[in-house]
């Protein structure tokens, strides 16, 4: 997996998204430094997933600019954004449900294959070689996320935690340079969460920048280099995990107020 820590950055400037007149994001700006694990946190409805959707082309922002590697992503379709190396996962488990784990990952390898219609229909040899290579790549990725023993099984029949791993494998197969993970730990047992945390570190180790949205603070605080806190569609804090945990605005946003109401 290419793309080591270079000058590549994701920059979000003044991003605003409206849903039927209601501002879901009211002008958010942040940057993601290469080679880091950056987390976006915030209470429910803070606009985290909305930001993800806008960055990856699933939502059209009302205003603002998103640049990746110096070039704007705004207005591109999700598949075009993926082609530029920005790949995401989804909050709700999102696999290709009735296909096997291996097929799931091989679909993820779409961009790494080149076969066109004629190549396929004419059954060219090049394609057979390519298919073999893809199968090997898929095996490697499945092994990387630790699902080698599950490769023939149907994705939707796997336990939840393993489905999330399939999802991660699919995203990795798409050759990301920036990987956006939307609540990778949601609904997992703490043991499973540890596995995912470890995986995320390994992914960063391969030179992939990670941006994640997560609710589990133990997980966030454990793996993040930088934490960005959103509330009511705005950034309220940004910094290292230790600073965030004691930040008064963050505590108020999360737990409400203890005694006297502000």
């Amino acid at each position, binding site marked *: 997996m290419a793309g080591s820590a270079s000058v590549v950055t994701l920059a979000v400037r003044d991003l605003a998204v409206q849903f039927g007149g209601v501002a879901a994001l009211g002008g958010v700006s942040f940057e993601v430094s290469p080679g880091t694990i950056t987390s976006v946190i915030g209470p429910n409805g803070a606009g985290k997933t909305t930001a993800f959707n806008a960055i*990856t*082309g*699933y939502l059209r922002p009302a205003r603002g600019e998103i640049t990746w590697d110096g070039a704007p992503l705004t207005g591109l*379709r*999700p*598949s*075009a954004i*993926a*082609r530029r190396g920005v*790949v*995401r*996962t*989804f909050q709700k488990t*999102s*696999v*290709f*449900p*009735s*296909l096997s784990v291996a*097929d799931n990952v*091989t*679909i*993820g390898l*779409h*961009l790494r*294959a080149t*076969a066109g*219609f004629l190549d*396929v*229909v004419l*059954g060219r040899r090049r*394609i057979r070689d390519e*298919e073999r290579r*893809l199968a090997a790549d898929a095996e490697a990725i499945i092994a990387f996320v630790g699902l080698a023993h599950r490769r023939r099984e149907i994705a939707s029949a796997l336990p939840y935690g393993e489905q999330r791993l399939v*999802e991660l494998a*699919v*995203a990795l*197969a*798409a050759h990301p340079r920036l990987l956006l993970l939307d609540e990778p730990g949601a609904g997992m047992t703490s043991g499973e969460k540890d596995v995912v945390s470890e995986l995320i570190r390994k992914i960063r180790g391969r030179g992939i920048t990670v941006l994640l949205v997560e609710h589990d603070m133990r997980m966030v605080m454990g793996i993040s280099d930088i934490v960005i806190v959103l509330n009511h569609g705005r950034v309220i804090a940004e910094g290292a995990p230790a600073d965030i945990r004691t930040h008064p605005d963050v505590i108020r946003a999360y737990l409400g107020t203890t005694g006297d109401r502000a």
Partner: protein
Amino acid sequence: MIRLARGLGALLALTLPFWLANPYFLHVVIMAGIFGVLALSLNLLLGYTGQLSLGHAAFFGIGAYTSALLTLRLEWSFWLALPGAVALTALAGWLIGRLALKLRGAYFVLVTISFAGVISLVSVNWMELTNGPLGLPGVPAPELGPWSLRAKSAYYYLVLAGVALSYLVCARLVGSRIGRAFLALRENEPLAESVGVDVTHYLVLAAVVSAGLAGLAGGLYAHYTRFVSPEVFLFTYTVTMVVMVVAGGKGTLAGPLVGALLFTALPEALRLATSWQWQMLAYGVLLVLLVFFLPRGIVPALAAWRARRAS
């Protein structure tokens, strides 16, 4: 086991005219073959991309008319007219694919129905081109060098080649990056987009190939019955195709062929089994029962049964 069955099946298909002496049965098998191509074609859209086209009779009809008109009016050889028919229907498929790009589910269905409706009315009313409801009689039988493929056994091999070709195209697509993109579109469109699958591109491609294959079936049909009339656009043709695909098992390669064989033979079997008053009634009831008890289709049910037995 499976390989043995496949080998036997292939041998059976290749030698069929030699031991199936009765041309009526051969006729049924030829019709099953033509519908097999149609079912494979529809399956590409319905089974793999998950989009139901209820306008497939339009592609079938366009193919039949194109091939018939090219041979009748321009006196092209069958061997040129048939690819011509495939090309034109593929173009029509491209058009529909582009039009319905953003539409999914029921809306896609309705656009395809409407498209078929318009085309069908054009075939009835554009007298100068299609000879309207009078139809086009005298479509020539294909000739191969000095031989005419008019005989049933000869035409059987032509249709068999058509089925084999269609099956090959489908099988190769399905086993490739393109087929996986179709599946991704059916299974989870947002996820497919997120890993770089340009779903609209692949939807259009699926529509083009599917339409092209339906056009091939249309051409084969026209030169077999040697008469084309606007009835080729009848909605019942589309319904028959859907029945074949869904009952056989959508999203499997063998399902459409099994469905085509079964549902071409069934009406003929009913012709023998019961008097004409009861035939269609029985057909409807059998269809309801089949779907009710095997909602996923015959081939997947068999596969599940085998898997159960194996474990």
